[in-house]
């Protein structure tokens, strides 16, 4: 448990707190961020403390960074004996410089009266931690030979495992205690960085090398305009970057999807027999429906008249559905005078199929958006969503011999007469010619 905390929990905690802490401090308290140099109060000893310490630690840090970033190349270099020995000697020399520098700095803080005014407890904590860390490093370098060489095979994979979010403590678990302590010390230093004078590490002014010598800040209106323009340009660049990032991400996701489909296509996943049967059944049903529809269409293309119903089957309460020449639903009723009434059942609002039940006031209802249509005239009720009346459909009634008894065109003009006596034996047809005429 302790092991897990020291080698996984602490590093992540330290990195997280360091990043969040630095950002927080730089934004919240930029006035407090400073190197807090004390050269002004005491310069003579500082020279012999600050210079060795900083140059030493920069060299050491560079060494650590190289072993972390290019382990392979570094290892092959370190297999050259004289190079390995020189690197180790240089490292130990730099470590000694660090120790001397820290010692002078520590001593100076303790003994110079003026400095004590600017010294806080945190300064001693930081200095002590650094001294301990450097001393441990020296112990590792001296006690476990050729650290420059073996660290690439052990510590580097561990740190990389942390970086790639797949922590692997197997290599460090069995390390000697000084090495483990040295690593813990490093995480601790990272942890306290944002809250102590170590914050000056994030202010290293590298940009000084590249900036122009003079800096003039304008704040008058014309320059303001320029500043706004610059800001807008910057912002549009930021928007562009955001959009590009968004598009890129979308592209990646899409291609992941496409690749997935492609992969599955070539993978030909096996389907269970039942599933397969169901699938085939569904497909067959769909095909049948399509075939039926096509059949109806074909019939309407060929035939002049299409049978709707026998007259005896019709009544005034519930309409009978049929399909008209335009492949639209229609409804057939029988009027009080015994003559058939044929209406389109396609609602003139959004094309739903109108219901066939006639209510007390002789109307049928479109259930989609509640339009009532009068079955005699086809007119919708006032205020209904549907504005136009349902179309009338032309028909012809023939007796059992097939001779024409009566007709009605789509405009409503009637011919013939329906005899009550033979009415029950007659059949109702819709007529192409009369419909088209309308």
């Amino acid at each position, binding site marked *: 448990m302790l092991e897990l905390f020291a080698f996984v929990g602490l590093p992540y905690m330290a990195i997280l707190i360091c990043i969040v802490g630095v950002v927080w401090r730089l934004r919240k308290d930029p006035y407090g961020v400073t190197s807090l140099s004390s050269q002004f109060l005491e310069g003579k000893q500082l020279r012999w403390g600050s210079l060795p310490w900083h140059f030493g630690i920069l060299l050491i840090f560079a060494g650590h960074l190289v072993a972390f970033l290019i382990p392979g190349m570094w290892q092959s270099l370190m297999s050259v004996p004289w190079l390995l020995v020189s690197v180790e000697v240089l490292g130990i020399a730099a470590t000694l410089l660090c120790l001397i520098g820290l010692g002078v700095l520590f001593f100076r803080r303790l003994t110079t009266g003026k400095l004590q005014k600017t010294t806080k407890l945190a300064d001693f904590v930081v200095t002590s931690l650094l001294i301990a860390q450097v001393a441990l490093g020296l112990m590792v370098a001296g006690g476990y030979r050729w650290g420059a060489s073996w660290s690439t095979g052990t510590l580097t994979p561990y740190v990389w495992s942390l970086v790639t979010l797949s922590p692997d403590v197997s290599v460090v678990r069995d390390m000697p205690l000084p090495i483990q302590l040295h690593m813990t010390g490093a995480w601790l230093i990272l942890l306290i960085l944002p809250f102590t004078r170590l914050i000056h590490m994030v202010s290293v002014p590298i*940009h000084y090398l590249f900036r122009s010598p003079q800096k003039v800040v304008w704040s008058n209106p014309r320059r303001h305009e320029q500043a706004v323009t610059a800001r807008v340009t910057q912002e549009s660049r930021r928007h562009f970057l955001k959009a590009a990032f968004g598009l890129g991400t979308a592209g990646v996701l899409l291609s992941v999807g496409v690749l997935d489909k492609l992969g599955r296509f070539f993978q030909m996943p096996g389907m269970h027999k039942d599933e397969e049967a169901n699938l085939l059944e569904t497909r067959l049903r769909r095909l049948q429906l399509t075939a039926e529809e096509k059949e109806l269409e074909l019939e309407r293309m060929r035939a002049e008249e299409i049978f709707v119903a026998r007259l005896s089957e019709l009544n005034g309460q519930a309409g009978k559905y049929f399909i008209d020449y335009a492949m639209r639903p229609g409804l057939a009723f029988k009027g009080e005078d015994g003559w058939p009434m044929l209406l389109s059942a396609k609602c003139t609002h959004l094309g739903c199929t109108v219901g066939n039940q006639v209510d007390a006031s002789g109307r049928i209802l479109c259930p989609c958006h509640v339009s009532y249509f009068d079955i005699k005239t086809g007119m919708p009720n006032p205020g209904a969503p549907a504005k136009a009346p349902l179309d009338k459909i032309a028909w012809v009634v023939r007796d059992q011999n097939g001779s024409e008894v009566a007709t009605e065109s789509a405009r409503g003009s009637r011919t013939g007469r329906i005899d009550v006596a033979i009415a029950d034996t007659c059949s109702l047809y819709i007529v192409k010619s009369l419909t088209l005429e309308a």
Partner: protein
Amino acid sequence: MDIRAQVSMVFHLDKCIGCHTCSVACKNVWTDRPGAEYMWWNNVETKPGTGFPHRWEDQDRYQGGWKLRNGKQLELKSQSKLGGLLKLFYNPNQPGLEDYYEPWTYEYENLFDAPEGDDQPTAIPISQITGEELKIERGPNWDDDLSGSPKYAANDVNYDALSEEERQQLFEIQRVAFMYLPRICNHCANPSCVASCPSGALYKRGEDGIVLINQDVCRGWRACVSACPYKKIYYNWVTGKSEKCILCYPRLETGQAPACFHSCVGRIRYLGVLLYDADRITSAMSTADPLLVEAQRDIICDPNDENVIASAKANGISDEFLEAARKSPVYKYVVKWKLALPLHIEYRTMPMLFYVPPLLPVMGKDGDQPYDHAEESFFSSLDKSRLSIQYMARMFSAGNESVVTSSLRKLMAVRYYKRMQQVGDLQEDKVKRILREAGTTPEEAEEIYLLTAVPTVHKRYVLPPIQREEAIGTSCDVQDCKGSCGFGSRSEAK
């Protein structure tokens, strides 16, 4: 042509009485804070003297200002770019507390709280840094009025140009002379402090030329402290940030003269706008030492020139600013009359504070008469001056004596002219000859007299409206910052 405006200054040294009122006004307003006790954004030095900090003019020691590489290329004396980064850890050219002085106060409480005893209680001096008893050995004006001359005046850096014999003469008791030199930040047009700042915290305001340090960006690397040849940037050891004269910009922005100007007893200070061509700064500051004063005058533009006005307007300089530039007393002293000279132009920072060199300590001794009125040698006293022209030239014209001489001659001619008018013991044709030889006219002499001797406050301080209400906040949004302006510690340093 890239015309910038600068609120610039003239100090008329003949009028300075060395009272330090300006220094105290500044101290009370700005530097009466922990860590800033030792700072004197405005100080008054006695010359000859070593100044504050000790021997600040010694650029071999402090490496301030610019140098010419191969006699052509301007570069910082204190550091190269890479060298600047290496000096972060320890800057060998930075003055330490010992070069200034350890600030102190007195233990006044002891006067009230001391236990009863035989002796009168005293207020002993205590350090403002450690709070412990302090033996005072040096102060910010320890060499005031030539006190401690063997230690201070004798070590004046500007004596380097003088021969040993000339130096000895200066300390003959009969001809001892001194002058006062009030100093604030010069708000240079080619500031070496800005160029040296690793963090980029220092900047020059385009519309009024004030050089400021953004306290939120400063990281206390102290490169500016050594790069400023005038040592007018101070390191605050409590906050860990550097600070400098801000030309009281919160006062300027509300139409008031800076505190040191406002409080000046001798009315020696003039404030006005100069227009200059920023495109030519580098080339002007790269000329040879003797030509530097003239090169600087040359890039200060005539505010009545139409091209200049057009270019200034293109840069967003307001009509009010241009109007102030036309009325500027500084323009008259510096360019029109060529009386006021920059201090140590050889540092090549193009300082925008100018000094009218003092005539009184220069006036020679002629027999029993302090002034030489011999008919044929009006200006001969300059040659026999008590403070040598060489010495003055070292301070005000990079060693070019003719620049200083012509300024002093003109000052002298104005006096002859007024003497003729008011005392009446000089003949008019002779005075006219004097004026001619000094390169001036009766009209100009009258004008010089009026602005020098009896100017009203509005003639001395021609303050343009800075139009803060139109400016974008350089540090924070104006709405957010309303009710608070100026400089101060907003939070404790960590």
